[in-house]
């Protein structure tokens, strides 16, 4: 059993509750014990850092310190690419300078908290590959995703910048989604949008450009004959699934591309039912669109 300090983020408890729910269902099947950081606040998603860098760094240092207080926890885990990116950015500054860290710690000292350099903070995707391992994951698969053609959609915050996110030849984290899909028995579909931006960050500023981004990537996946996409980022999910009807209008074509959260895809292969993973709650319902008849998952999803 692996114990982690678990940061679910805001959106997984707001507009994509099926993400938080499916993670809770999948964790025991992988022997992960989730200790939820229910006292921590929003990472700021890059927006608070845009407003005031020290504020974002301090709010996240508080979260890191709370995670370091969780007894027996091996690391902190998140289920949101954007949280990962926003936290990694703050952590980079905090870890780079002892003087700055001391300055930030002074602000949270009143609560009896202090961040110590070097917290391991991993997205569920990284944890799957680096801590559980692809072999172990493969051995736990009950219903291989045979013949399911899955397009990976990483989300910007979890693949760039490479240095900050620890992506190198030994840790090809920008390829893990491909590896996980294969370990679960599915087929990886390559298409232009794999590591591009879903457009969500500018949805309130330039809606047309934002929806065009989402629509273009979904369209590329349709053209590459993907059955569905999978993403470790709930914000990408909002633009790719919730906004898909509007994205269809923006690019002038029908898309009907289901988008799964990473824990949902893992859960399906580990034998959970689509309904308990919240798949029926998506705007584009995977069960209604995917030709499950050729897939082993078919019987369960019908």
């Amino acid at each position, binding site marked *: 059993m692996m114990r982690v300090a678990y940061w679910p983020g805001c959106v997984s408890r707001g507009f994509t509750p099926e993400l938080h729910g499916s993670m809770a269902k999948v964790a025991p099947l992988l022997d992960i014990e989730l200790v939820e950081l229910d006292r921590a*606040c929003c990472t700021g998603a890059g927006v608070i850092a845009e407003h005031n*860098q*020290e504020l974002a760094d301090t709010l996240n240092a508080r979260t890191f310190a709370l995670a370091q207080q969780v007894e027996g926890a091996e690391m902190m885990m998140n289920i949101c690419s954007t949280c990962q990116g926003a936290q990694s950015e703050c952590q980079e500054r905090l870890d780079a300078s*002892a*003087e700055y860290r001391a300055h930030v710690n002074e602000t949270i000292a009143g609560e009896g908290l202090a961040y110590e350099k070097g917290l391991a903070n991993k997205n569920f995707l990284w944890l799957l590959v680096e801590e559980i391992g692809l072999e172990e994951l493969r051995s736990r698969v009950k219903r291989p995703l045979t013949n399911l053609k899955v397009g990976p959609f990483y989300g910007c915050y979890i693949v760039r910048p490479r240095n900050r996110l620890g992506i190198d030849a030994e840790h090809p984290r920008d390829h893990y989604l491909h590896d996980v899909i294969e370990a679960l028995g599915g087929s990886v579909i390559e298409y232009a949008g794999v590591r591009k*931006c879903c457009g969500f960050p500018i949805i*309130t500023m330039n809606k047309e450009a934002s929806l065009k981004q989402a629509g273009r990537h979904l369209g590329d996946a349709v053209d590459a004959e993907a059955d569905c996409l999978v993403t470790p980022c709930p914000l990408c999910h909002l633009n790719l699934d919730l906004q898909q009807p509007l994205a269809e209008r923006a690019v002038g074509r029908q898309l009907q591309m289901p988008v799964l959260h990473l824990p949902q895809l893992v859960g399906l292969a580990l034998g959970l039912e689509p309904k308990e993973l919240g798949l029926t709650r998506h705007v584009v319902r995977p069960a209604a669109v995917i030709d499950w008849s050729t897939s082993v998952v078919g019987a369960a999803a019908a």
Partner: protein
Amino acid sequence: MADTHRPPEEFTLRMLRYDPESGEAPYWDEHTITLEPHRSVLEGILQARARFDGSIGIRCSCRAAICGSCGVRINGEPGLACHTHLDHARDSATDGVIEIEPMGNMPVIKDLIVDMDAVHWKKVQRVTPWLIAKQPVPEREYLASHESMVDITQTMACIQCGACVSDCLAMEVDPGFIGPAALAKAYRFVGDPRDAEHDARLRDLAHDPQGIYDCTHCFKCVEACPKDVNPMGQIMRLRRIAGSDFKIVDKNNGERHEAAFTTLVRDHGLLWEAELLPRSYGGNSRWGKFSPRAGKELISSLPAILKALARGKVTAMGALKPHKIPKRDLESVRSIYDRIEGREERYELNLYVTGHDEEEPTAAAGAGSAGSAPTTTSTEGSPG
């Protein structure tokens, strides 16, 4: 430096060839060249041109990563051909063949040469890329703090190669976006205390629908830049200065979105999406959602909202009620806000200036490191 003594090896280059004047479609062309592995991709291209095909089009000059002429895409990633080793390029190729394409987001003139005038230079011109001196002009030199000048050296390091423009994902769907290189150049003057027009520059870039708030925050330019200019980081600083120091409330909802986000996290500890969207359009208060701008947006988003409600993805109660953290923790979060927002000057660590302190071995200390003291961004000279 054992690498430099490695014997020449064969490398295969696959180049995308295209001559718009020929009327033919673009095609792939392969040549195998022989060079030491530490030599550059540019040297490989030049050898292919000299030995096999004199018509290969490539623009280059200094061959030392300073003139910015030879920007291309190597194995799909933007960079300088003269700044990429052949062996590294082969390692990152999918099939052992080094794939070279012209940069993206700009029209191709021939083969690997793109039209920088049509896109990149026009955008740079757009941001008034020269200093507008404060009046009266002093008799002797202007006095500027050392700190502020070191701060803008990061944007001055730009060599105008266009690598960031090539891969800008906002520009891909919105070609009119001013873009990373030009906006980094804009910061070079907004961050310069000798410039007289900070306010006008920021107002212009904030209100332009294709200005600072059109950046999708995708980090592509950060990754593409061979000189560590961090264009996206500079755009975020322009937003910060425009919103916080100059109080510019732009018509693109940029400042409102940022203010609403920051306030909602202060009030609830967590984000409340159902409230964030209307406030971003209508204004940063609980009344924001009743503004005509928010109403118009609500109507255009109605199909998505109704679908989400029908699916049980979002419940009406869930949307109307924020999720919160415990009261005691919320008080801690608010005290962090009060303390930091109450500072007279923003306290901002710039790793480009300070470097990573503990990674340097002690032997290297004093070798040009600027130390670890965080820089403060002065808000001096701002209105209000």
